């Protein structure tokens, strides 16, 4: 008997008697004989807790985490410091183990946290409504695309090449099924060139700051979309929103983004959460759960899942999305993190990043063999190109314990020796100096002009 099961042989006998069958086998009578497995599944033998722990630890040890190297990887997920309180609260069984709050009387913890989370997202994005989470960043862009499709039934998305490649691809995957086209707009000087838009355009899709780290001038872009009657969807780095003009102020209709920077683990890419905010006009088109405030029969304040007629369990094939299980626990971590940062802390953190990033960019830009891809304002991430093969440079850096960033060539062939360098508050000036030193020598060593190589 496994340690997760309580049914002893004696229990089993009593229970079978109460049911009135002679064996457990009989309970499966509805399964055609032919389909029943005669052999056990081919899986490894059961293991004790201790052995499973050792195995999972051994697997973990074969990964190089951000604790084991000086990492400047970003490109969508960032190594921020996660305060202890996030783990302490999200680890409580009361938040960790319940289902979606279908019985609000015994789910006020989750529901009120959702409401508080929605409020925080509205504050960050400058938009009046938000849902309680979607899966993660790139699929949030696709989900926003579905809102636009439902809203205006037009046939084309215009997407900036500054949008995360994963998000562009996720949108494409679905747009194909919706029989919609996806047109990409190139970057010019690192930012999205204001595109020509016609009435076939359902939505203009942007990212702030864009994938190369540049801060977009959103107002110009949303104006163009507005003119064409299209919506603007913008995926945002929530940390950058501590200092940037809000999407709401800039005229964005739907602001989404990857929530991982808000107190989330890296977790090799998930689970995290996607945030989703919009104008009031789109409230009834939002996907997923939304918590709303109300009162109980005694007049006490309470919270419920609201506007459920949008959702699959009520509206079924006419739902605004098929999403059901989302990312409640991660979003809870998000609101705890934001409350931990607080009003001033959020700004302080973003400004610290702006300053450290400016320092890093200036210093790296001065390294021989390194040049900046653009000179637009940035918040915490920027692109450079190297006068040497990027893979070899990266490999050399790693030998010195430094992971200098994400190689851009896979997603931007024109930047084949490009590198995207990201900062968080965990990377100090000393770390930046070390990066410059290590990257500088690596570029030197790999520079095509340098002949002598092993």
């Amino acid at each position, binding site marked *: 008997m496994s340690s997760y099961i309580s049914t002893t042989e004696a229990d089993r006998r009593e229970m079978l008697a109460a049911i009135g069958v002679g064996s457990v086998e009989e309970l499966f009578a509805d399964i055609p004989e032919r389909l029943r497995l005669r052999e056990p599944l081919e899986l490894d033998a059961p293991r004790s807790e201790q052995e499973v722990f050792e195995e999972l630890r051994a697997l973990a040890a074969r990964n190089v985490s951000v604790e084991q190297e000086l990492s400047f990887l970003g490109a969508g997920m960032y190594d921020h410091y996660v305060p202890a309180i996030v783990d302490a609260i999200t680890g409580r069984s009361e938040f960790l183990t319940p289902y979606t709050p279908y019985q609000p009387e015994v789910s006020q*913890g989750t529901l009120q946290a959702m409401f508080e989370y929605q409020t925080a997202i509205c504050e960050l994005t400058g938009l009046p409504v938000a849902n309680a989470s979607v899966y*993660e960043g790139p699929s949030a862009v696709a989900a926003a695309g579905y809102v636009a499709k439902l809203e205006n039934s037009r046939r084309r998305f215009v997407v900036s090449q500054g949008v995360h490649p994963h998000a562009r691809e996720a949108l494409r995957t679905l747009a194909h099924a919706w029989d919609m086209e996806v047109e990409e707009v190139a970057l010019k000087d690192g930012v999205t060139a204001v595109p020509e838009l016609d009435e076939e355009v359902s939505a203009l899709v942007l990212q702030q700051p864009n994938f190369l780290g540049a801060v977009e001038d959103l107002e110009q872009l949303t104006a163009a979309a507005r003119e064409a009657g299209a919506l603007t969807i913008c995926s945002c780095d929530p940390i950058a929103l501590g200092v940037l003009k809000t999407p709401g102020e800039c005229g964005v209709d739907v602001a989404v983004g990857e929530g991982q920077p808000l107190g989330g683990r890296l977790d090799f890419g998930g689970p995290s959460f996607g945030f989703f905010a919009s104008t009031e006009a789109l409230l009834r088109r939002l996907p997923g759960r939304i918590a709303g405030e109300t009162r109980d029969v005694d007049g006490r304040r309470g919270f419920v899942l609201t506007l459920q007629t949008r959702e699959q369990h009520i509206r079924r094939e006419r739902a605004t999305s098929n999403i059901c*299980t989302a990312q409640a626990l991660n979003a809870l971590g998000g609101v705890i993190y934001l409350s931990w940062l607080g009003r001033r802390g959020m700004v302080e953190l973003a400004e610290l990043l702006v300053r450290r990033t400016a320092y890093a960019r200036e210093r790296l830009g001065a390294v021989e063999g390194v040049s900046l891809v653009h000179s637009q304002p940035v918040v915490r991430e920027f692109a450079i190109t190297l006068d040497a093969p990027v893979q070899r440079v990266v490999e050399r850096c790693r030998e010195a314990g430094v992971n200098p960033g994400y190689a851009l060539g896979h997603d931007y062939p024109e930047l084949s020796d490009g590198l995207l360098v990201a900062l968080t508050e965990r990377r100090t000036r000393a770390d930046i100096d070390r990066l410059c030193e290590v990257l500088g020598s690596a570029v030197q060593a790999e520079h095509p002009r340098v002949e002598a190589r092993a």
Partner: protein
Amino acid sequence: MSTTPRWFGEAAGDELTIYERSRPGRRAFVAPPLDVPERPLDELLPARLRRSQAPRLPEVSEPELVRHYNRLSKRNFDLDTGFYPLGSCTMKHNPKLHERVAALDGHARLHPLQDPRYAQGALELMWQLQQALAEIAGLPFVSLQPSAGSHGELAGVLLTRAYHEDRGQHRTKVLTPDNAHGTNPATVTMAGYEVVKVGTDPQGNVDLDDLRSKAGEDVACLMLTNPSTVGLFESGIEEIAKIVHGVGATLYYDGANLNAIMGICRPGDMGFDIVHFNLHKSFTQPHGGGGPGAGPIAVSERIEPYLPRPVIVRRASGSNGAEPEYDLDYDRPKSIGRLRGFHGNYGVFVRSYAYIRSLGAAGLREVSETAVLNANYLLALLRREGVAEYLPAAYDRLCMHEFVLSGAPMKRELKIKTLDLAKRLLDHGVHPPTVYFPLIVDEALLVEPTETETKETLDRFAEAIAGILREAREDPETARGAPYTTPVRRLDEAGAARRPVVRQQN
């Protein structure tokens, strides 16, 4: 606060949100020092790109933050507190080991864009998990990418589309049973197909005649849950597969109910082409109050070319007996593309992998056997006098891992609805079953005890149900006014939807 508060620990101020606790100047965060030159912000980021006002986030100290969310947590009922027989949700025990291993730095602090050569442990774990899921499903290829069940469904229907398109076929319809979970039809629409409903026969199975009449060349797929959402195994599954495959459509398996059949039979063997798993149901990822989850899919050979990108590949490392090497393959020309960023919900994979490793084949079979035993035992207890008259089983058969009761007679005889019964259960310290689903049963109650509950718990639950019905015979008002012991009582949901307040305006 009234003279005597209603529950242990209730205190003045409990009704406040974190925003209402805010006071200017308080803080939990202390910024690390500015160690670079403090240049004027305007030089770095022009004012016109900057926000004009700080976001009105709360200003609270750490102690307040801890108390606020700690006290909020106590307003939840959870699985570690009590019985949670929520049908279709498989609220089984979440082993504590899983949180420990998922939190290891090498898993939790691994950047998704780490070079695969430095993430071999993660890729191996994913590859091993794929192997295990393939074996459990009886289908050879797995993608772990989808983020939840409905995301898996979406992947599955998109795969179906890609498959047909690759054959130059343009099909427009997807069949779903009338008892299907809401995500099935919603997915169909979202994947650009039209939903066609298939009926259920009086025994609770798919109405084969109806299916035959609707299965035409324009049908791309049939989505099926098996055991179905009424907790019954489709004994005609082979016939169903024949009909569906007969018209060239694919057969999709909604894996929400996989907990009933692990190691006992396999969707692949039944003829399914595509299966999704809910790792947050059958494989112990905690539900988190509504996620995270993960919805991997397993598919047959003919569907494999279309799987989401990237896929994990394993290379035997030459002949020198070294460890095999794992990598990510993006070069998949027929792929439907990505559904999301990075590689899926890895943290969930860690937990589910630990689970499968702990149990092995025998353990997984024991899970399903016990889940079905527990459900049938509970059903038998509820067939007793004083209960069965009011809450009969919707289908008078043995069930699989869950069963549906109908509260229609109760409503008629005792004047209490399924909702009232559910609310009254809250006063007994148990979470109610799923209510009003599936839609095809009047006043439905879908009960799924799972394998991790004790016989004593099942006995007490049956006793609680009997007690409530007994009480209602004398005094239906009590149930109609329930709950009484919860932090809040019945809430005005209609009002909330009429004038939605979805954020705090401070």
